[in-house]
């Protein structure tokens, strides 16, 4: 009997069970007449706890599995997925995918990745570090995190608590070219959310860390204290006068700029002529001195992968060099549509990094700015990838004489991403390592701030 109160390590027979399921799916697709097929199978498990005011709030046990299969009849395709990995369910799922493929239409660009591009080398990227922590220990850690927060500053008036999450999973991608690649990984997160002030002056902020190995996590106490420091400095926020100012995006929000870049240079928008960066390959799209690249093989990287979602071997792509757009972000389908070769980005980018151009973090970069706004939070979805038009809500700090003066709220940051990218004047060395997109704080010359 397993111990439901803690997370057992993934059992050793899982590899062969996933392999059997994938083989059955591919075999059944072939029997049904599919000329090509591909399948992803995965299973994962985890635990998450939240502690609020020193008491357990939630204990959640996670256990998920899924299969996703795509079959090709000529250049027609159909896709099906299921959480049931029994033999009957797999056959049923393949039948559903085949049935859909009977109704979709020929698309000559459809199909698996070219066999010659599939990964043959599977480097150990050090992604799997199961924690095996019990619910009781997870609760103790979260409680310690929250207690450190509540003891840190008397201006904290309320708490949403501290959380600890651990997850591990194994997935297999296989296709009818004979490719078979496993990915085994883990991810653990620790977080704390607190509130300062009362009534109309209430402010909330948080801090978290997220890593492949629990050994790399920030200590619970420092996460709690960091959450508090970020929250209390928001007290007394003022409004800001409408106008044009330079801004610094703190590293925690600067990564969003790179996600907009990825959306704009992804194949699916480009072949539809639906991107403001269409036709910009080889042209200057960022300020001189800006370098953006992918490092898919970083040890313990959150976005590390030896192959992409189609089995294509990943590589260290240079996306932007000295401001010039060197590469799009493509999978096999969109690459064929554009007459290019896949960049091994089926399923997304891998550890995309904006290289620092200046020493220091948000405060040092704000020092370079002199007068303007340090943005520490963005809300809303006002980004148009077709035109590059940008308008988002924000929270931040008024900076004068290179020094943070006071918090500011209820304003928007607006411009056009084309100009904002060209207007990047400095990138700090304070790279935020917690995500798949990695950047330091970013200084952008004039944008429009709408306040009162």
């Amino acid at each position, binding site marked *: 009997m397993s111990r439901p109160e803690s997370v057992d390590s993934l059992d050793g027979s899982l590899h062969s069970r996933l392999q059997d399921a994938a083989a059955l799916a591919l075999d059944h697709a072939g029997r049904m007449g599919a000329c090509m097929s591909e399948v992803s199978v995965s299973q994962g498990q985890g635990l998450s706890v939240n502690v609020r005011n020193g008491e357990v709030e939630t204990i959640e046990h996670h256990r998920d599995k899924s299969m996703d299969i795509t079959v090709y009849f000529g250049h027609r395709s159909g896709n099906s997925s299921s959480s049931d990995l029994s033999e009957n369910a797999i056959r049923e799922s393949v039948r559903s995918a085949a049935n859909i493929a009977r109704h979709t239409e020929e698309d000559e660009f459809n199909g698996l990745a070219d066999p010659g591009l599939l990964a043959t080398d599977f480097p150990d990227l050090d992604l799997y570090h199961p924690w095996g922590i019990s619910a009781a220990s997870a609760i103790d850690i979260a409680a310690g995190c929250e207690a450190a927060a509540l003891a840190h500053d008397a201006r904290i008036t309320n708490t949403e608590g501290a959380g600890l999450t651990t997850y591990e999973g194994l997935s297999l991608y296989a296709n009818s070219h004979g490719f078979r690649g496993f990915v085994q990984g883990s991810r653990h997160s620790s977080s704390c959310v607190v509130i300062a002030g009362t009534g109309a002056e209430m402010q909330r902020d948080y801090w978290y860390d997220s890593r492949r190995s629990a050994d790399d996590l920030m200590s619970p106490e420092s996460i709690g204290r960091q959450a508090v420091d970020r929250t209390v400095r928001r007290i007394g926020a003022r409004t800001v006068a409408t106008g044009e100012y330079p801004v610094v995006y703190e590293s925690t929000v600067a990564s969003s700029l790179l996600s907009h870049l990825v959306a704009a240079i992804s194949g699916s928008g480009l072949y539809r002529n639906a991107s403001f960066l269409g036709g910009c390959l080889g042209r200057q799209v960022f300020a001189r001195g800006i370098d953006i690249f992918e490092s898919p093989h970083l040890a313990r990287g959150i976005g590390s992968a030896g192959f992409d979602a189609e089995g294509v071997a990943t590589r260290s792509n240079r996306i932007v060099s000295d401001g010039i757009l060197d590469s799009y972000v493509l999978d096999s389908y969109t690459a064929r549509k554009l007459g290019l070769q896949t960049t091994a980005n089926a399923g997304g980018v891998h550890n995309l990094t904006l290289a620092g151009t200046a020493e220091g973090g948000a405060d040092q970069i704000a020092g370079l700015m002199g007068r303007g706004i340090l943005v520490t939070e963005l809300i809303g979805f006002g980004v148009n990838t077709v*035109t590059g038009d940008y308008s988002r809500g924000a929270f931040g700090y008024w900076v004068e004489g290179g020094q943070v003066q006071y918090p500011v709220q*209820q304003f928007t940051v607006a411009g056009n991403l084309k100009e904002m990218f060209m207007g990047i004047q400095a990138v700090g060395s304070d790279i935020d390592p917690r995500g798949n997109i990695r950047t330091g704080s970013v200084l952008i010359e004039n944008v429009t701030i709408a306040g009162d």
Partner: protein
Amino acid sequence: MSEHLQSASALLLDPGGLGQQEISATLASLMARGVDYADLYFQYSRQEAWSMDEGVVKSGSFSIDQGVGARAVSGEKTGFAYSDEIVLPALEQAARAARTIARSGPDTGAVRIRQPQGETVRHYPPVDPSGSMQDDDKVALLKEVERVARKLDSRVRQVSVTLAGRQDVVLVARSDGLMVADVRPLVRINVGVIVEHNGRTEQGGAGGGARSDYRYLVEEGRATGYAEEAVRHALVNLESRAAPAGEMTVVLGPGWPGILLHEAIGHGLEGDFNRKGTSAFSGRIGERVASDLCTVVDDGTLAGRRGSLSVDDEGTPSQNTVLIEKGVLKGYMQDQMNARLMGMQPTGNGRRESYAHLPMPRMTNTCMYAGEQDPQEIIASVDRGLYAVNFGGGQVDITSGKFVFSASEAYLIEKGRVSFPVKGATLIGNGPEVLGRVSAVGNDMALDSGVGVCGKEGQSVPVGVGQPTMRIDGLTVGGVSV
């Protein structure tokens, strides 16, 4: 046994050999010492999607997901586990994991299963969308919508259409013995258009849906109507100029602009944030939070609407909950746990994305009732302002009350007249203040077309909004033109 319960049992319980006895025993084991409340949530979900791009029906997908979530609640503590296998050993294991929040001790005794008293009022038919139309006809519908969009204007460059349908069969069994089922259909179609003229490219979009089958989308010419609307929207954007920046009078059009209510008011009135005192609306029931022109409700009982529910995900019948009446805050939206802890009644707002997620208070269809003014008079009353009729997404900081929502179609109002279109811009305001600035409410209350999705703590659920034309004296418009 009701027809719904019968068919849900046949689909969810019978294959794994589960009956009332096993469910009753599992609930009893969840009700360990100190547990106030427990439930089991069985779900079978079947969905499909078809999409068309560049004139070709390129892809289709089908998926099935099923499982059971087991929850035990003790005071403010919740234990939760789930399984994608609906068989007794998996159920027992989930129950053991969920009850780890309880103190050890003997179980509290048997749970006697019962059905709701009286007939549950149903707000949509128990249909299966995927079977309501032949696959060939789904493909033909996509092609027809695409054809209509393309032939409308030579500036149309790209048309993408997505048709999606799902059916969820859910069965809730609770520690108070109540066992209730619901069969929920949901369909939608979305049209996206790219237009290009003189080197300028813009986009437009439209769509709609309901808790119904695919016939809803073809009736009354709805699907092709969305194609026309998407093209019109894109062509308006081709003419748009830079949006203004700064605080100004804003007139919101009817229908989907009700996303304002969802972000500025709705989330802040969900029971969990108010129980914890983390909402900008905490402790303010009975206070004036809006102008007396404003009456806002959350109504899960609207027939066939995307956000509607016959019973919520905890088995509570849906209802029409008054949130703000003539400007005064009247109530919160509650699930079982938060209602009990706050000494209030559940309001049928306990919702969850799936069996693998915990329920929490969520909106259904959040609407403002009509006022008396002619919408044209409201526009004419503005000397200079923004008239915003279509929106993308929105977001709110519950604690500070600051909210945003992004206009995707808006016009400048000059001397009482709608002049030229302006580019999309985010509007930002303060939830507890914004409805206090409402100075006119139109007589043209409309619901949105049925494509809304709300995200909270990583869980997505379908929702609706609605409102009449509304004038707000002072909202910050986040354009670029100073």
